[in-house]
């Protein structure tokens, strides 16, 4: 176990009289050490012992549901949300307008919140007791169970909007079906997620209409984005055995989701791409831990701080 990073020790690389780094340290120290006042000012939630996203929630498994299957299923949905949250966050400082940057970060925050609950539930259900952090930061690429749609690079803004439209439409439909799931935690995540995903879908739909029905140039860029992500859509409807045992058969979502997407594209003057699904490797895809080359670098960035300072607190 590494020693905890000590904020009070002078960093060896800092100049002897350097004060910039010291001053930064002191800002955070004062937050961490602030005595809580009667109105709660100067508080710092980290380290209060209340960070568990399922604090005090009954964690018993419903009868008839296999813990390993439920864990595998929660991991799939949690990884989808975690990885897309990471991609959306990459738009920070890069979006065309500040408002869009704030919007995309907000959507990522919703997904990150869903991921926290789902990963926590996965660690409970499989009996391993792994926390959300154990699962997010300490698994290797082949242990991630997200669909490949969420891991591919952002591309341009239209490309990211196309991906978001596909994901939000399909995930909203899935959450709606999962709101009646026998596991109370999964059902609760889904019930709240339905309302959040409705905002995501509305945002993606509005931009698809604006770009598709805008200038010939914006329309061509939007169509190119759709053409690029469409081969990844099929994986969302292809059932993994664990999904059939623990959740909803995603094949049942194919028809209503495709119908809904086609209606948006028709209204935007865009064409439903006629492209075959992205090939799998001997029938294995993201749900089996077989990913595109894009996931490794994404995970490296996501996990680097946790791995550089294992067990660090602040």
């Amino acid at each position, binding site marked *: 176990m590494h020693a905890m990073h000590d904020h009070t020790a002078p960093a060896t690389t800092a100049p002897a009289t350097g004060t910039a780094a010291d001053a930064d340290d002191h800002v955070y120290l004062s937050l961490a050490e602030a005595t809580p006042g009667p109105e709660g000012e100067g508080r710092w939630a980290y380290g209060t012992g209340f960070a568990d996203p399922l604090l005090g*929630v009954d964690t018993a498994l419903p009868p008839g549901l296999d813990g390993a299957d439920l864990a595998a299923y929660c991991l799939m949905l949690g990884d989808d949300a975690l990885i897309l949250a990471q991609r959306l966050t990459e738009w920070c400082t890069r979006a065309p307008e500040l408002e869009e940057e704030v919007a995309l970060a907000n959507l990522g925050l919703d997904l990150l919140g869903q991921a926290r609950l789902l990963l926590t539930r996965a660690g409970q259900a499989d009996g391993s007791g792994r926390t959300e952090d154990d699962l997010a930061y300490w698994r290797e690429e082949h242990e991630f169970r997200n669909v490949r749609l969420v891991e591919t690079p952002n591309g341009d803004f239209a490309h990211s909007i196309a991906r978001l439209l596909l994901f939000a439409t399909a995930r909203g439909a899935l959450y709606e079906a999962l709101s009646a799931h026998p596991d109370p935690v999964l059902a609760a995540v889904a019930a709240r997620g339905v309302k959040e995903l409705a905002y995501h879908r509305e945002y993606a739909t509005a931009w698809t209409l604006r770009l598709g029905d805008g200038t010939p140039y914006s329309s061509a860029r939007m169509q190119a984005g759709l053409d690029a992500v469409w081969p990844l859509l099929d994986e969302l409807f292809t059932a993994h055995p664990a999904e059939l045992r623990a959740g909803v058969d995603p094949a049942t979502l194919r028809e209503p989701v495709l119908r809904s997407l086609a209606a948006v594209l028709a209204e935007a003057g865009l064409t439903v791409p006629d492209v075959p699904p992205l090939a799998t490797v001997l029938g294995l895809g993201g749900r089996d831990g077989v990913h595109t080359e894009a996931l490794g670098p994404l995970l490296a960035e996501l996990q680097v701080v946790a791995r550089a300072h294992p067990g660090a607190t602040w």
Partner: protein
Amino acid sequence: MTTRDLAWETAAAVPDPELPMLTLADLGVLADVETADGTVTAWLTPTYSGCPAVAEMAADVDRRLRAAGYRDVRVRLRLDPPWSTDLITAEGRRKLAEAGIAPPRHTSAVTGPVSLVLGPTRAATTGTASPAFAPVPCPHCGDTDTEELSRFGSTACKALWRCRACREPFERVKEI
């Protein structure tokens, strides 16, 4: 007043970390408080999935109850039924408006299928059939000639608006 009512009042007075003019009771986050055998248990319903204020709220409720003399305090989350802006009380809505933040409409007025037309950024200023486009009065001057700038704002729960009459920008708690 019973022990339970006293414990409720203590927990209910905790301010929301991001909307400090509102208490957790105003916001509808405090779901229940139970006292039994010297222990007090408070249930909170978290707002958005990604709202980072939940840990802060739980810590504050715990601290207030201990400060009020309760030794054995338990704070728990209740996920079902999910939180909705409909749970914000009338008092909470009044305090929001007073602080310059437009309160949310009731969600029964705004749920439904995703619109396939680009909606207006300005809500109707005169009578309209659809309650989804009911006027959003400016919390500063009260004029209904207001428009949405962005559906997403400084926190997960708010959108950015502006008043075309007094020219002031304002935030609005959006329905969920």
